[in-house]
């Protein structure tokens, strides 16, 4: 396969994953804004911070409120992390790698771009927001579904999956990192009642609230959440699950190509930081430090993959 195509696939699926994560993030913020009596400024701030667009947002808008944040995250063409922008990028990459995609995957991607472009034509009214967010998640899921259902399990598939899981791991880590101050104080004040809603937001941002309850009942506590989102391999958006998938996709590639590359050592190292760990040891050594290292490691891994498989040169 052409290096350019591998890169196109990888980024196509990173962008698709990103659009879905942005929708989840907004959903969580919106939920808070609805359930809180006081102004939810700090929640909107943390949505913008998690999306990594604080500077851009503040240059564009003076005030953190629902309308500004929703518009910036969903529609703003200047924001290279808006749903509109990343959907367009996903589709552009899909055009680039069209010869590597089944008709179903291409059509789902193209249609999703058309549908979302239409839905995001005009500013989103508050009452329409839930429907639009559901639509965004649904479109991303459709493309992933066609990938699952129609593509050969070859290098093409593995590059696509690498994009999905690297983006997702990065995203989960960011959400945790931005929220770590919510988790942190309660560690030293065990038993004190911190706002339950805040904890739930974290789970909700990752569509993990129901899964968490299935496993832990109603006992929502900081280290339980951190354990679930970092170390539980059965949770499809946890760091451990994502890293395990990345490892397996890279292993498939090295088996298919009969060659081990530096990125394989890179992922092994990341895998070790999670394997056999307990949440207590992670929290004890500093959650923020841990997440910072993890995000950095993901960035390194991503550029090593680009280099090893000749995406650009």
């Amino acid at each position: 396969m052409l290096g350019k195509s591998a890169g196109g696939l990888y980024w196509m699926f990173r962008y698709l994953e990103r659009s879905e994560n942005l929708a989840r993030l907004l959903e969580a913020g919106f939920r808070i804004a609805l359930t809180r009596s006081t102004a939810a400024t700090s929640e909107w701030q943390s949505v913008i911070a998690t999306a990594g667009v604080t500077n851009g947002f503040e240059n564009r808008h003076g005030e953190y409120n629902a309308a500004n944040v929703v518009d910036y995250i969903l529609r703003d063409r200047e924001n290279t992390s808006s749903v509109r922008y990343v959907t367009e990028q996903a589709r552009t990459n899909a055009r680039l790698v069209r010869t590597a995609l089944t008709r179903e995957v291409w059509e789902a991607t193209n249609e999703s771009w058309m549908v979302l472009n239409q839905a995001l034509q005009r500013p989103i009214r508050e009452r329409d927001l839930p429907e639009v967010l559901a639509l965004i998640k649904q479109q991303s899921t459709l493309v992933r579904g066609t990938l699952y259902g129609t593509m050969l399990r070859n290098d093409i598939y593995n590059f696509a999956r690498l994009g999905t899981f690297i983006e997702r791991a990065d995203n989960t880590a960011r959400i945790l990192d931005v929220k770590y101050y919510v988790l942190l104080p309660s560690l030293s004040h065990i038993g004190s009642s911190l706002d339950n809603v805040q904890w739930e937001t974290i789970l909700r941002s990752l569509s993990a609230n129901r899964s968490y309850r299935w496993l832990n009942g109603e006992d929502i506590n900081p280290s339980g959440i951190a354990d679930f989102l970092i170390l539980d391999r059965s949770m499809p958006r946890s760091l451990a699950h994502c890293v395990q998938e990345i490892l397996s996709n890279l292993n498939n590639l090295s088996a298919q190509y009969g060659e081990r590359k530096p990125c394989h050592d890179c992922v092994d190292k990341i895998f070790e930081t999670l394997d056999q760990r307990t949440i207590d040891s992670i929290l004890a050594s500093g959650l923020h430090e841990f997440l910072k290292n993890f995000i950095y490691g993901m960035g390194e891994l991503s550029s090593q993959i680009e280099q090893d498989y000749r995406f650009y040169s």
Partner: protein
Amino acid sequence: MGDGKNEYDEMFGGDGTVRNAYREYHNWIDAEDPAQLLKKSAEAETFFRRTGITFNVYGDSQDTERLIPFDVVPRILSSREWSRLARGIEQRVRAINAFLHDIYHRQEIIRAGRVPERLISENSAFEPKMIGVSPPGGVYTHIVGIDLVRTGDNEFFVLEDNARTPSGVSYMLENRETMLQMFPELFSKIPVQSVSDYPKALRRALARSAPSVCSGRPVIAVLTPGIHNSAYFEHSFLADQMGAELVEGHDLRVIDGRIAMRTTKGYEPIDVIYRRVDDEFLDPLNFNPDSILGVPGIMDVYRAGGITLANAPGTGIADDKAIYSYMPEIVHFYTGEAPILKNVETWRCSEPDSLAYVLDNLEHLVVKEVHGSGGYGMLIGPTASKREIARFRKLLKAKPGNYIAQPTLALSTVPILTKAGLAPRHVDLRPFVLVSPDSIDITPGGLTRVALKKGSLVVNSSQGGGTKDTWVLDD
């Protein structure tokens, strides 16, 4: 022109009777509910949008991809009509390849005085770097599109030979695909020859033209200028259908005298490139130094026999408009036969007698720039204003050698579906030809372009033209 009186309607005879080729189809459409058919038309648009069958429009930031309108009424040719056309096309394409070989080698046609020497040597489409070069398998133009117009029952004229980079074949294939989806029952009623083998035939023609350094199964790639090119859809479509790689210049480099592409496993050599990049941009070392679309040094590899380029550089000389007027002589010179397909009568303004005639009859003629393309630098006499005619009179006197003139033809019509029912519109036809060292393969069908505006002769998609599925009956 366009007065509706002398035009040949392909579906209906002068007395309103349905012509033979359309009989079955007409029975069918007559029984259909017009409202339902219009609904189907709208569905076709959705289908094209979803599959992304679009062309890019330059300089339009909001809506950079457009659909070419599709009309659901097919253009139908009988197998007898087709076989005569196919024979004529094959003869013409054989002559074109022989002509290309000749003018880049011994130039016998010039020595024989059949084509003036300066027409070649002073032609910007002539490529001096191709002199003495023999392409692998001897094929210059592997992929050809011949533009035809019809004026009567057996009256077909060649309007243009597209020997460098003919486009539109993806529309031929997708138009058929769309018809099959929308009206499957039609195809079980009416025997229509299939066009779906084209990608396989293209792959075969390219593979057979592989250079002798190729060992094993030839590696084939389609070279595109990139995602912003107006025909990008077609480039990726063809690569996909052939199972070839779709590459851009920056994916390629010269390694050990071969052209190699950057893959995830390293550089791998390519044997055949179906290039959709113009000569000028193909190689910054040999042609335009500013080009970033091509591959530095590819021309040297080509001359040394390390790669097959389809089509070969320098083929543009064969579809030049000045050369066109010599095509009857060219066909005769290389095949020893009378041309089966006619040329449109053409006056070369470089010749004083012709120039005098053209100047006297500007309001009845179409004047074309010799090296122009896509409807630029053109005068359509019958619809032009007095000022335009005066302007062209000056241009012609100043540089007569730059122009040719042709009569306006009464193009045939085929009905399209409108809200008011069937209505005749002018059409042309581009059949597609594949040439390999041992065969010439013509797909039964082609791209029918149709002027959607009543009375208009302009079928270009950039100027509001649409397309139709083209049927060759299997009778």
